[in-house]
């Protein structure tokens, strides 16, 4: 049979976000796949260089609506390190609390989407209903359901009181009950098993080679979690497990995420039971001294890295974001090869792709595949020229 190539996306019912896969099919089986990105590219990094440090918090929060706290915490971590600010313990605890609530919201959301891709719509509705509980907690803490804006330079914007803490514990208890049900469902339900076991295989070695991150890597048995390896906030004082699983397939990714939910509940309870007293923020000057810094953060999808370079003014000179999905995308062609067409949506969903995170600045020369080294000035000139030809001019000087 002749091989045919079909496009999947950018608008496709199985994809929630614009991205494009070119699948080479031999009958029902996939023999090759390429990933095309860039549909969601907005140019946030460039925009960040034109706004001041405070405005950037709100801009970078909007990189992604699902892991907004992750990106901001990561960016703020860099800036605070450059400015040598000592963040109060209470602020760190609140940041940890929001971070874990965000992880729960993201994992529940993912569980729903994955169930939907499997054709298990009941579970999709269940998880999204339960997810509302977390969103209520976040709204109570920060005032907004999706972009919390709880972080600010030097601490957090809002304090938490005893009544709110009680309310959160109540909701977490409810979710804990529900999660038991999901654990059973994910590990025993025949539909789920049939759709996930031995699908989208990613062996340990390949996962390392292709730099898989977060739950995708942990489901292949790779022990990596920034919260353990390089603890930030107050994670070094908390007691929780790093969840890994060695089935190396989509099933493993489901198990890892569901069990991580349980760990997150544990963390939230610990944080709330020992909330340090004191101020919630310290003053940070408008102008940040010259310097540069990198911060690693364990977002729900894996390790997020931000790099900030400052030049002594109130505007950053460079902000670079490396979102986890960009890294996880390298493994997708490998996972798809040899699988059936019907398994494509669930395999793609299993890395929990987040295009809005990824599509900020992807430059890849696919035509000749060669790498060329530019120095900084050259690269800058090249890009300005390149965009001038396309009718966009952003040479400010």
């Amino acid at each position, binding site marked *: 049979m002749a091989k045919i190539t079909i496009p999947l996306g*950018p*608008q496709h*019912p199985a994809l*929630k*976000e*614009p991205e494009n896969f070119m699948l080479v099919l031999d009958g029902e089986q996939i023999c090759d796949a390429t990933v095309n990105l*860039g*549909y*969601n*590219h*907005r*140019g*946030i990094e*460039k*925009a960040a260089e034109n706004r001041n440090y405070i405005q950037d918090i*709100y*801009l970078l929060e*909007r*990189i*992604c*609506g*699902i892991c*907004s706290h992750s990106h901001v915490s990561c960016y703020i971590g860099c800036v605070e390190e450059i400015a040598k600010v000592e963040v109060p313990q209470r602020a760190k605890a609140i940041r940890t609390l929001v971070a874990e609530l965000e992880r729960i919201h993201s994992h529940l*959301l993912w569980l729903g989407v994955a169930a939907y891709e499997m054709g298990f719509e009941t579970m*999709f*509705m269940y998880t*999204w*209903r339960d997810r*509302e509980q977390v*969103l209520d907690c976040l709204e109570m803490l920060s005032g907004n*359901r*999706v*972009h919390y804006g709880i972080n600010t330079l030097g601490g957090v914007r809002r304090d938490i009181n005893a009544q709110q803490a009680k309310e959160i514990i109540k909701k977490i208890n409810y979710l804990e009950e529900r999660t038991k049900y999901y654990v059973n469902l994910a590990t025993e339900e025949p539909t789920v098993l049939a759709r996930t076991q031995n699908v989208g295989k990613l062996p340990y070695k390949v996962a390392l080679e292709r730099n898989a991150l977060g739950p995708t890597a942990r489901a292949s048995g790779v022990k990596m979690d920034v919260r353990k390896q390089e603890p930030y906030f107050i994670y070094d004082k908390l007691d929780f497990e790093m969840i890994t699983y060695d089935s190396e397939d989509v099933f493993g990714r489901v198990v890892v995420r569901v069990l991580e939910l349980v760990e997150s509940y544990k963390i939230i309870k610990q944080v709330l039971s020992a909330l340090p007293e004191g101020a919630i923020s310290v003053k940070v000057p408008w102008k940040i001294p010259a310097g540069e810094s990198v911060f690693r953060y364990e977002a729900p999808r894996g390790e997020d890295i931000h790099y900030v370079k400052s030049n002594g003014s109130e505007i950053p000179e460079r902000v670079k974001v490396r979102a986890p999905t960009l890294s996880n995308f390298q493994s997708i062609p490998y996972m798809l090869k040899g699988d059936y067409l019907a398994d494509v949506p669930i395999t793609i969903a299993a890395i929990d792709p*987040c295009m*809005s995170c990824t*599509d900020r600045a992807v430059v890849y020369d696919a035509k000749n595949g060669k790498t060329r080294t530019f120095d900084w000035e050259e690269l800058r000139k090249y890009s300005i020229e390149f*965009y001038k030809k396309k009718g*966009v001019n*952003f040479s400010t000087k």
Partner: protein
Amino acid sequence: MKIKEKIILWSRLKSPWILHFNTGACNGCDIEIVDALTPKYDVERFGLVLKATPRHADVLVVSGPVTRQQAKRLKRIYEQMPEPKFVLAVGACACSGGVFDGCYSVLGGLDKIIPVSAYIPGCPVRPEAIIDGVVKLIGALESGAKKEIEAK
């Protein structure tokens, strides 16, 4: 009003099918749109059903600022929809470009590319706001269609 027209209007109002398209949103609005479809908010009680292809859809729900890459795809999807068609701009980004206004790869709000029937502001929009927008759109459709038929 003829009986045939009555039936068409009735079916159009009782069950507008929607297509969701992301033109470069941050996901915040997208998850709120899906949220509006799930049990707590449940816009399906107004007959709204999420459809997968533009050829089946009456209402195009768009979130996000229009990026350079997505502009021509958005146009094509809009053209593929059957008449009469309606467009909902969901979120500050789709209304005006939002925080991304001025970014080099963002063209701006949705109305720069295709005509928009209703704007729902918010960053992100709350599911309640989406429901409100949908109900208002249905109301406007009803009065508009009735006037048109009477004028004939």
